């Protein structure tokens, strides 16, 4: 479980993230939404310890992130970002193997090889193993990137949760791969020890897949909870300055339409 208590991050006198508290449970897909400048990116960077909080505390299980080194953290925490460009040509399997770097010194062990093979099959990139990453299409690159990041936390860590953060990784994927990726996350969550917290822009994607939603507005939590609790007309209007029409279809799905 990931617990966030009164976390604040100030830049140039302005609180980008202002006393945010939240908790993210294992086996749940938690998504952070909000308008531009609401502090989503900053919050996810604080959670993954890319940035340090100016006040408040963040705990992985019960360990404060301040007490953990980046090396320790890298074994149980992975971050999927928007897109990754390589500066030099590498083969796809070399890129995926980088995800295992925190786990071995020198040569990769059998477990590292196995993790790479499994994760490449899981994300359907095994056929590209020997191709040059720089010659792939944008969508292919992103899937290789998914495989690399998941390779980092592919095996359960003894007695600890694993943490996956999503920093808008779906931005450059078409709708098919967006849905496919969300489906894969659901599959991964079945392991029972995985905490996933992500930032997404697409409200309908959040409405379709999130177990828990945190709505940020001006650096603060405007609402948090289930989609029914958070995705109300009032909340959306306050945060996004547009009034949505909400549709509920069968299978517990919600759809937001902005008909301005």
């Amino acid at each position: 479980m990931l617990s966030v208590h009164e976390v604040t991050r100030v830049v140039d006198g302005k609180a980008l993230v202002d006393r945010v508290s939240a908790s993210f449970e294992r086996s749940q897909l938690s998504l952070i939404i909000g308008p531009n400048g609401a502090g989503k990116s900053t919050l996810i960077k604080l959670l993954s310890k890319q940035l340090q909080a100016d006040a408040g505390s963040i705990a992985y299980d019960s360990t404060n992130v301040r007490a953990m080194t980046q090396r320790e953290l890298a074994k149980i925490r992975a971050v999927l970002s928007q897109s990754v460009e390589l500066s030099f040509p590498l083969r796809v399997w070399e890129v995926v193997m980088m995800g295992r770097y925190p786990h071995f010194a020198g040569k990769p062990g059998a477990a590292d090889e196995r993790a790479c093979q499994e994760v490449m099959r899981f994300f359907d990139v095994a056929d590209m193993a020997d191709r040059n990453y720089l010659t792939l299409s944008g969508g292919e690159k992103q899937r290789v990137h998914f495989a690399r990041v998941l390779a980092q936390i592919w095996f359960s860590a003894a007695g600890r949760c694993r943490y996956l953060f999503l920093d808008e990784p779906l931005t450059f994927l078409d709708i098919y791969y967006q849905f496919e990726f969300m489906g894969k996350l659901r599959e991964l969550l079945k392991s029972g020890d995985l905490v996933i917290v992500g930032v997404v822009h697409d409200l309908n994607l959040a409405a379709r897949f999130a177990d828990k939603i945190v709505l940020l507005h001006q650096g603060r939590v405007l609402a948090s909870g289930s989609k029914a609790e958070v995705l109300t007309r009032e909340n959306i209007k306050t945060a996004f300055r547009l009034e949505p029409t909400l549709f509920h279809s069968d299978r517990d799905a919600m759809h937001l339409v902005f008909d301005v």
Partner: protein
Amino acid sequence: MRLLGSQDRSFSPYAGIVPVLAIALLVIAVFSIRLGAVTVQFADMASALIKRFEAPNSLNITERIFMEIRLPRALACILVGASLAIGGVLMQALFRNPIVEPGLVGTSSGAAFGASLYFVLGSVLKFHAGEWTLPIAACLGGAAATALVFLISETASPNRESTTSLLLIGIAINALFLSGVGFLSYIARDPQARSITFWSLGTLSGANWRSVALVAAAIGIGTLIALRHARSLNALMMGEDEALYLGVDVARLKLTIIAVNVVIVAVATSFTGVISFVGLIVPHLLRLMRGSDNRFLLVGALFLGAIVLTAADIVARVALRPAELPIGIVTSAVGAPVFIALLRGREYRF
């Protein structure tokens, strides 16, 4: 099974190529040693090496040419070529930019400035350390210019992704120090100006055992440290954020790599002058052979850098025989078209 095939390769990034490079280096070094006004036979080499330990004073003239001129020069070629190539790998990896040279952070222009100061003002400054004066002046110049680049970039850009600003400040400081070199050449008397020009083009004719030993120490220690960080440099190919997510201490990595680069490049340059293009082209040649894994690039650069500079030295000695061309002219003149041809090839994409 395809995956198993690639798995095998991942275990040994060096397999196949490094032994070939090592043999090629041996062949070209021996060829270089034999070549010259006096041909050194294998028998001379063997007898000289044996006498060196048993009776150092009984060497005949051919053996002395081998021990005192050809061998140190060949070793200097190997070590300096390796230094420049390793420096190129490190800087390209650090800046994540394929067009970066080891001198980028001010090292070689600073060294050229230090050397020029020595040529023009050396007699006035009363700074004497015998045959070491020039190397010390060059080394200090290189270190000072690099330190300046760092100080400015630390104070000017407290933002996180500072490699771009480091690169730009490096370009500015290079321009500044080269203008200093230009000024010194302008005020210099003719023989001094000629020394500056010659040094700026690089030469290996002054190689001796002591300089060889010092360059060997620098490149040896530098390579060991660099190899320890090769994986972190791989992770850095994806950017500073991704490297951090993989547990790399990016700030420390940068500092370590630049320090290693400055030491090996400044030391090598201080004895030979500025030799361009080797540090740029060797990493590219290696990437064409076997991708961009820095573990392979660093080991490969040791050998290929040595091969390239030895080959260039042979050309420099042969082209205008009996006169000798500055080696920097050869590396640039041959390196530039080769480089362009490589980039136009279809296999190599950025």
